[in-house]
């Protein structure tokens, strides 16, 4: 028996389903946790009194285009927690357990993922993506959930339930461009432009570039926008080339870079690009785009010399089991930084004798500063006027550093022109 009017309804069904597809799927990996109390410590969700284990959660893109990035962050976090646990735990007693839920880098899925793990965790050790973080802010405020954002948008830095740890996108691009201009002062006369996502991330890059170029009387000439899933960027590249852009601030992830290089090569266009570290991928070193990266791109991010032994924390991270033999990347460092912030906060809360949601929120309000063993600048937590790190490590692309390819050429660089305090 055929369904009557079946084909006539298929168009409608397709439309309905395309809408429904945006509201599906999230997977949590639960490795225990629970709630309870102990004689010494006032505790809430995420604390297992039997094992003295504190469970913290991540909401990361375990699936989707930037899953590899997210998994590296996760490994970086796990490496720090492994180190703390191996030393007996926080305060020599409390071990850290990490669970993760998938947001597929989508804000609506982040809320689903949050609901899935919120009762199993003391706090969120990472939430990936500015839209996801912003979607969770009102919920976190309501639930008194402390969140360490995997996002670098300046507008979230003073949110009371957030513990931001990184320099902002604005600072990163400002430092990157300042580095180029200070190396070659003639570049002050260059035309500066942005190729960025058509979302807040792109706007952040535009804001940072507008700020730093104003220091030498220049401005952002063109802001070409694209979507995260765009594979054909010829029009955007033509826009930039026609405007005569010579230095371009870029917002985008590693999956976008091949299309950028392909379009630029097609138009024989070789400006200088300033990119965040998340735009690099290990696979690039063996790909046709490697030479273009080397000639035309610099990358910004936390960290330092990825292969050197000067920084003990980087050395230990590079050798940690959590990396499973993978080469150290800035994404690993990014996760490591988040985990350091988590344990710093937990230490404070344990000192206070209270790791309930309210206790952790109180500890966050009392915390003055978080330091990161030289792999990231300090975060100063003055209530209502926090200061995020203004320094950036500058990386060049170097095949000799392959497969990851990023060679630190300037660690903890801060633009001599200064960075806007609001960044």
């Amino acid at each position, binding site marked *: 028996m055929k369904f009557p009017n079946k084909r006539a309804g*298929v168009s409608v069904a397709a439309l309905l389903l395309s809408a429904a597809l945006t509201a599906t799927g999230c997977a949590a990996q639960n490795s225990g946790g629970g709630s309870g109390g102990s004689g010494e410590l006032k505790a809430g969700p995420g604390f297992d009194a039997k094992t003295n284990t504190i469970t913290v959660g991540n909401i990361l893109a375990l699936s989707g285009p930037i899953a590899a990035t997210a998994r590296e962050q996760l490994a970086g976090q796990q490496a720090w927690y492994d180190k703390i646990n191996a030393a007996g735990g926080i305060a020599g007693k409390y071990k850290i357990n990490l669970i993760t839920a998938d947001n597929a880098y989508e804000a609506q899925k982040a809320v689903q993922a949050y609901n899935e793990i919120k009762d199993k965790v003391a706090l969120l050790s990472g939430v990936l993506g500015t839209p996801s973080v912003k979607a969770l802010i009102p919920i976190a405020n309501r639930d008194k959930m402390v969140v360490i954002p995997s996002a670098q948008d300046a507008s979230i830095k003073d949110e009371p339930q957030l513990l931001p740890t990184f320099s902002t996108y604005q600072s990163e691009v400002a430092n990157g461009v300042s580095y180029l201009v200070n190396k070659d002062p003639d570049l002050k006369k260059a035309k500066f432009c942005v190729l960025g996502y058509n979302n807040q991330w792109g706007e952040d890059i535009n804001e940072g570039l507008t700020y730093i170029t104003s220091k030498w009387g220049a401005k952002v000439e063109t802001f070409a926008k694209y979507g995260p899933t765009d594979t054909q960027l010829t029009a955007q590249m*033509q826009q930039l080339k026609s405007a005569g852009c010579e230095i371009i601030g870029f917002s985008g992830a*590693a999956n976008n870079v091949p299309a950028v290089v392909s379009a630029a*090569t097609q138009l024989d266009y070789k400006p200088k690009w300033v990119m965040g570290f998340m735009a690099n991928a290990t*696979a690039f070193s063996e*790909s046709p785009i490697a030479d273009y990266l080397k000639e035309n791109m610099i990358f910004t991010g936390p960290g330092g010399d990825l292969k050197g032994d000067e920084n003990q924390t980087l050395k230990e991270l590079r050798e940690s089991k959590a990396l499973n033999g993978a080469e150290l990347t800035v994404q690993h460092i990014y996760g490591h930084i988040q985990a350091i912030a988590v344990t710093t906060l937990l230490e404070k809360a344990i000192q206070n004798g209270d790791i309930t949601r309210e206790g952790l929120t109180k500890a966050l309000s009392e915390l003055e500063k978080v330091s990161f063993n030289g792999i990231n600048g300090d975060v100063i937590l003055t209530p209502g006027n926090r200061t995020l790190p203004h320094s950036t490590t500058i990386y060049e692309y170097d095949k000799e550093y392959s497969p990851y390819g990023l060679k630190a050429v300037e660690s903890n660089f801060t633009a001599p022109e200064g960075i806007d305090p609001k960044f």
Partner: protein
Amino acid sequence: MTENLQILAGGISLGCVFALLALGFVIVSKATGVFNLAQGGFVVWGAYSTYFLHQQVGLPFYVAAVLSILFVALVAAVMEAVAVHKVASKNLYTPILVTFGLLMMMPPVVSAFWGTGQLTIGDPWGLKVIRIGEVAITERNVAVIVVTLIVVAVFGLFFRYTRLGLAMQATALDPEAALAQGVSDKLVHRLSWAIAGALGAFGGIMLATAGGVGLGPGLEEYALLALPVIILGGIESPLGAVVGGLIVGIIQQFAVVYAAEDFGVGFEEVVPYLLMIAVMLVRPQGLFGTRKVRRI
């Protein structure tokens, strides 16, 4: 003038990718009446199996691509036989949800085998560029355009002049009458899925060749970009898929440069949907769709 030609070339290439992705949906819809959401999974499998055969087994790229296309076609036909055929005529929604389930299953399996990082597929085009006068176009884009034209021509001839093509159309129009004439609906359904699988696989291979290193998680999402193209062109019209794809691709590329800022950030992303809605208001069946007539 040159700049506009350059943008047009980019739009045609993008439109051809849309067309390839849309054709897979259209073929199955036309022949079986099922809206097959598993198409995104075929995109993923085509790309990763080519990577496996070329980069890990060591076969030449073109051999790997052809074998992958055949493999995905076979997988698609098996899926139809095992999971879809029995529910294909149940009602409107059950087969769609079954194909959605198949879509959900495929990417995690791929991630389990090949991880979640960006991978280099190792295509022969890389970043090579061909210049036609003042206009530059990548060899990879030329390949997309040429193959799309060949595929469209082959489909046109297949549906018009072959017994099987006519049988597929007959089954789509009236399954009972076709069955009475000795046309096997199983064969038609499986063949349409195999063709859709092959198209999806080819689309996936081409998507993964962006800059030579475009293979990574999330490829299945690109198939969904074809949805407005399908509705615009007509959900059962192969010609509509191609024309719709080209219209959307070209207009989207020009919108990037010429759409006024006043329309809002990311307006070019909305253009396909605006076009789709505008066409549906005038022609609900799409540009090349057939209006359904019901006897009451």
